[in-house]
């Protein structure tokens, strides 16, 4: 493989923001026909590397070569013209436009100087068929598509540019299992066609399944590049975080059947998306929500937080009836409820607002003084949260958008923990954050549970559910298919139940 010419080569590339080096004298090579995994914690320099390759930012120092030619991308268009195409984690689709418009946004088929809409639709149909998304109509608006379909459209859009080097940044994080398989197949096909692929993911099994070569970054430096199978998973994790990992998950305490039931829901239904759901969560318990993506888990969390209208069934909090009439009433229930949303950028954070305001936003009533706010009380409370969650911030007054993904997620957690919740609903809180931060989140959840907080934890990562939760409710088609506990709580039963495969062992 290495005797072919590299598709992308970086020599002594550095990138500094202010005084801080995001990338430090990095040499990096990617070859055609190779799937190259890029690994590292948040802030390790992966996204900076990608942004430089895709022409989004300029390197402060160093040289960039594509197919042996020295290049100096001033914007993403020039990178695309050279064959470097990136599927960004933050979707780059235009929500108010049709799928067909989006797929041909840069160089649409023209007829007489104007956009040929019939040709564009035809092109969209071909691209959608290529990724197995025939169910998406080319005239559908992107904003009407669920997140998982949008991500597939995003991939189709990148494929439409016929990349020589395709960069995938957490490209499968929102996909359903079936779509992930399709994406794998597409990536492998591209590899055999000679396309180079850079693959950024936090899911270790994905990297094992796909990558030919992997490079680990840490603190803006390239640590090591190695071929598949040359390093064990624990060695890789070790390289990424630079410290020994003894436990992936905190220990689980013994079951606590005597604790009072914090949250009890009976026969919750909502349209076709939630069907007759009943569940109990005791104080101090972490209950997992599993199953394939889009089986109603997100709706269930939103329903319990009072965001959905027209939910039938009853909810009791600490034995008292609770009306599902909105987040404000959920926050004032007998045990205050907090929802950590899935999409931190739209539902969790006010990106342009500063870190302090974001953290204290949901608990401002605590800092009231007369008609105004007690600034010093607010400040010290925020500092306390930042310390206890180990959020890496230089300046509380900086916009939250300047933080890395993992630290942004911690800000969302801090915001809700500050309200002093007795019940926490989590919607896939570890999506797209690094291993180190994930472990901190797991420990934090267990500590909260030990203090008596009831936690409902939806995750798309089965290992996380098994490692973190006392019990797991597996959802299928809007209902709870099965509750798993103790020895039944393992990957096999979760997957079986998620796929709704008849469990014959159970009968035997």
């Amino acid at each position: 493989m290495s005797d072919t010419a590299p598709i992308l080569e970086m020599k002594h590339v550095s990138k500094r923001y202010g005084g801080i080096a995001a990338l430090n004298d990095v040499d990096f090579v990617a070859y055609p026909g190779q799937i190259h995994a890029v690994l590292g914690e948040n802030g390790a320099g992966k996204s900076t590397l990608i942004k430089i390759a895709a022409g989004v930012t300029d390197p402060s120092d160093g040289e960039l070569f594509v197919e042996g030619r020295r290049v100096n991308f001033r914007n993403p268009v020039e990178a695309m013209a050279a064959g470097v195409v990136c599927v960004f984690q933050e979707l780059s689709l235009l929500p108010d436009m049709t799928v067909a418009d989006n797929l041909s946004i840069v160089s649409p088929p023209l007829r007489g100087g104007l956009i040929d809409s019939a040709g564009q639709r035809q092109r969209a149909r071909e691209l959608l068929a290529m990724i197995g998304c025939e169910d998406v109509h080319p005239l559908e608006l992107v904003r009407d598509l669920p997140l998982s379909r949008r991500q597939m459209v995003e991939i189709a859009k990148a494929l439409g540019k016929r990349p020589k080097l395709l960069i995938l940044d957490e490209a499968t994080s929102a996909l359903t299992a079936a779509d992930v398989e399709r994406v794998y197949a597409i990536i492998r096909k591209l590899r055999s066609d000679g396309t180079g692929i850079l693959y950024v993911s936090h899911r270790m099994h994905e990297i094992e399944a796909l990558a030919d070569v992997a490079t680990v970054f840490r603190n803006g430096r390239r640590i090591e590049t190695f071929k598949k199978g040359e390093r064990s998973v624990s060695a890789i994790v070790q390289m990424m975080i630079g410290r020994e990992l003894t436990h992936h998950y905190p220990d689980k305490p013994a079951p606590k059947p005597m604790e009072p039931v914090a949250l009890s829901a009976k026969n919750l239904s909502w349209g076709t998306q939630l069907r007759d759901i009943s569940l109990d969560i005791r104080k101090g318990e972490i209950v997992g929500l599993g199953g394939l993506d889009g089986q109603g888990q997100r709706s269930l969390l939103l329903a319990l937080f009072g965001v959905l209208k027209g939910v039938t069934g009853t909810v009791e909090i600490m034995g008292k009836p609770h009306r599902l009439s909105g987040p404000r009433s959920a926050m004032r229930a007998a045990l205050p409820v907090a929802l950590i949303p899935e999409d931190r950028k739209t539902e969790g954070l006010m990106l342009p607002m500063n870190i302090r305001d974001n953290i204290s936003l949901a608990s401002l009533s605590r800092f009231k003084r007369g008609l105004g706010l007690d600034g010093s009380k607010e400040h010290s409370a925020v500092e306390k949260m930042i310390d206890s969650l180990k959020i890496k911030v230089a300046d509380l007054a900086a916009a939250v958008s300047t933080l890395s993904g993992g630290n942004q997620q911690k800000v969302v957690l801090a915001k809700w923990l500050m309200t002093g919740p007795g019940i926490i609903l989590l919607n896939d809180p570890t999506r797209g954050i690094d291993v180190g931060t994930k472990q901190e989140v797991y420990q934090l959840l267990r500590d909260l549970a030990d203090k008596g907080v009831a936690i409902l934890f939806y995750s798309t990562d089965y290992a996380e559910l098994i490692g973190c939760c006392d019990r797991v409710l597996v959802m299928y088609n809007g209902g709870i298919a099965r509750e798993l506990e103790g020895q039944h709580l393992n990957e096999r039963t979760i997957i079986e139940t998620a796929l709704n495969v008849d469990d014959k062992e159970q009968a035997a």
Partner: protein
Amino acid sequence: MNDLRHRIHHNGGLLAAIALFIVMFIIYISNHPVGLTAAVATTATNKAVLLALVAMAQTLPVLTRGLDLSVGMVFILANCLASVFVVGTIGEGLLGIVLVLGAGALAGFINGAIIVWGRLQPIITTLATGAVYYGIALYVRPGPGGDVQSDIADLATGQLFGVVPAALVVLLATVLIVWLPYRHSVLGRAAYAVGSNEQAAYMSGVPVQRAKLLAYTLAGLLAAIGGLMLTFNTYSGEASSPIAGTYTLNSIAAVVIGGTSLFGGWGSAIGSIFGAFVLRTIEDLLFVFDLDPLWQPLFQGVVLLAAVSLGAVRVLRIRNRLELFA
């Protein structure tokens, strides 16, 4: 047919504006003492087309998630320039028209240039440049007066073949020559992309800056076409600050009634034309029902509020409260 269902879904706001206009216009005509004659239609059209053109102008910046508070001032500037330069022989008049349209486009281009390269907020930029353009209009025409080439004026405000209001033909021609090609051009679609999500548009390699420049430039051009038509109607120029302000604000109202989102990325200039027609018909309705003109602003406000509320009907269907904020 699946395609048709999507198309209707995409054009809901436009269809609602057309329906609202048709209903109001039928009420107006059926209560009109004379009924629908060529003369009545021509008078109604001549007034309505002015706002329709200014509303089309406003649509383009709004689609890019901007706003142009100077459209009314460019409209008045074009009126004052036309009362000076569109005079003499027909040939000289035509030359004057080119000059007036060029001035309008230049004014729009300056707005766009300041917004794109100066990176200033559209609202404050156009508030300032609008004052400048009004100042120039006042300098050109300190008091009401002037003249206009009457052959061209009569042609543009009369009737074609004795039935079709010529102003409507001008409006249609503007749609065919300016709007439709723009809508289907790469830069026109880029304007929608920028309004929909500017960051994503940039990441996708959309020419963000050129799209904005063109949107503001065409806004100036369209407002100038409106100003020309105003001159053809009044045979004079007047640097009137109230008229400039009214047209600016009504253009925003017309854009909203026409189903264009003030958040950008969604809508069309065709919708704004019907939005403008709706606003004009309100005035005419008050006239045929013989209501005191004093009530006009109040009624106009109520109808505007009602029309905008139509767009909010979707709220009643929403089952997930988060969608209210999407």
